[in-house]
């Protein structure tokens, strides 16, 4: 019995010490959101190769995936992330504000608002589009089941919501009350609110729930690749939102682990030709204009608006739409 106590106490202490050490040896941790799993699996291999070629050092890149909000919270609570690659700027702002691990002006440190790849929100329907869905209008029709995740927990869902909001604002010429009624009717058609974008995609594809999935463009293309063109179709709405998933160094963590140069190179390499090509292969729109021209045929032209155009900025969008008691909560509270 005494032997057991000693052993377990020893193991516990060993565990405490070892985990820190294992991470300290030229390893960087990328804390990312849900739909980027495939992207970073490919990119990490590329970057490890690139770094070894450049410096001769062998490094490890560790990954963690989850809902964008959940991942931001993990960083705030101390997950030793060296870089974060999340779904929206607000989540990185939250890390900066709540923990001080990232400077407030983080978005100025990398090109293009710190977003190496872009995306938009599209509609995924079943083959031959049995419900005849062409645009956002069709989502509020009675009998159309719409699948989208919960904007309170999912970053992608917030883009979905704001894309529909932008459409409604344009349709009703800026009348916010009517736009709100539009969203209320849309969410009445939602039978499941998953906590993350990937959960919604799986329910739509694997479980056969719903007539239309509001989805990241890259997620929709990926679904086509995984499940075949013969089962689903992508519908490009008349207008949609320009999604800019941001990346940044978690400065204080990277400095502490002594990997700032690797972390910085890791993010900068995303903007390189190789990085951009990988983004394209994983259905993200490249931010590099030259690469964008090269692959223009792969990405349908969509009229895009930005968050700032329809909601002021992320802070305001968060406060007005998604905070407790905000417009999104009102949709469900007065039924």
């Amino acid at each position, binding site marked *: 019995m005494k032997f*057991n106590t000693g052993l377990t106490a020893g193991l*516990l202490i060993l565990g405490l010490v070892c985990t820190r050490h294992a991470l300290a040896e030229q390893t960087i941790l990328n804390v990312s959101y849900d739909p980027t799993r495939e992207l970073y699996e490919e990119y990490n291999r590329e970057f490890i190769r690139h770094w070894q070629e450049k410096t001769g050092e062998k490094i490890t890149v560790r990954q963690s995936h989850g809902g964008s909000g959940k991942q931001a919270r993990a960083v705030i609570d101390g997950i030793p992330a060296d870089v974060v690659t999340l779904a929206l700027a607000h989540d990185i702002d939250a890390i900066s504000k709540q*923990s001080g691990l990232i400077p407030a002006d983080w978005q100025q440190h990398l090109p293009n608002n710190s977003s190496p790849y872009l995306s938009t929100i599209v509609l995924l329907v079943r083959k031959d589009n049995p419900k005849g869905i062409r645009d956002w209008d069709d989502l509020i029709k009675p009998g159309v089941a719409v699948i989208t995740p919960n904007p309170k927990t999912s970053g992608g869902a917030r883009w979905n919501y704001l894309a529909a909001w932008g459409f409604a604002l344009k349709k009703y010429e800026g009348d916010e009350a009517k736009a709100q009624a539009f969203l209320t009717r849309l969410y009445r058609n939602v039978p499941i609110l998953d906590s993350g974008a990937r959960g919604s995609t799986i329910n739509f594809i694997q479980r056969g729930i719903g007539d239309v999935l509001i989805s990241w463009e890259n997620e929709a293309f990926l679904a086509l690749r995984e499940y075949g063109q013969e089962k689903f179709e992508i519908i490009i709405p008349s207008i949609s939102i320009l999604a800019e998933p941001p990346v940044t160094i978690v400065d204080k963590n990277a400095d502490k682990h002594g990997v700032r140069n690797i972390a910085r190179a890791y993010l900068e390499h995303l903007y390189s030709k190789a990085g951009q090509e990988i983004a394209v292969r994983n259905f993200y729109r490249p931010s590099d204009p030259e690469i964008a021209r090269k692959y223009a045929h792969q990405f349908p032209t969509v009229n895009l608006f930005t968050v700032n155009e329809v909601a002021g900025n992320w802070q305001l969008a968060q406060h007005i739409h998604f905070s407790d008691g905000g417009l999104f909560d009102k949709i469900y509270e007065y039924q």
Partner: protein
Amino acid sequence: MTAIPLSQTSPAPHKVVTQESPQVRRILILLALSFLSLFLLLPLVAVFFEALRKGWEVYFVAITEPDALAAIRLTLIAAAIAIPLNLLFGIAAAWTIAKFEFRGKSILTSLIDLPFSVSPVVAGLIYVLIFGLQGWAGPWLREHDLSVIFAVPGIVLATIFVTVPFIARELIPLMQAQGSEEEEAAIILGASGWQTLWYVTLPNIKWGLLYGTILCNARAMGEFGAVSVVSGHIRGLTNTLSLHVEILYNEYNFVAAFAVASLLALLALVTLALKTLVEAKVAQQASRGNHS
């Protein structure tokens, strides 16, 4: 006992009086078995069916790839630390509660049971509140290069928390039922406390101990909610088996997800087989005891 109404006195039946008629028995058995098949057997079959959908080869690849192995290792480590600690606790708690009378005993019993009815989400959350960077110990830990949550110790702690009551709960009623006469005799004959524990009490409760350990182990390896909150989901580092299942599922890798899940289901089955074996041993011992 409630009195039996004597009003309806009919002639005494001449069949076996403590048995139901065959039809009733058959209906009851059928009803019970269909309920169990619907809620227990079907999910179990579904796990293995989905896991083997693409054949054995895919199955073995799924359970032997590095991330799966890392998850298996972490799960084993967490269980290997949690179980001995809970074993010690279980013996101490059962000794206290079963062998002595003191005030506040029922509160202590309720407190021991508490982790079992606390939502696993809350169990994870409280460790984040303490060891998180924004929590009480977080800044100090960071300064000293230690991590608890989003690392192995956090997962171990969460596992210990959810399995605290298992062994204690198994031992308390057992030791209460056995009474203290044997221990008292040993002490009076001059044995020390430790000797009494080692040579008298432990042999008496060994099967209960094993039984509790088996269940504790099953729960430790299968815990999801609490571990999910403190894990951080770092691939190959802080993913336990049950978290790895969720990750594979989220990567459209359903066959692999169910393959790993089937490992856990297999573990559950082995656990149950062991448990049945232990029960048989106990019954054997009991009947031998009765006959002597």
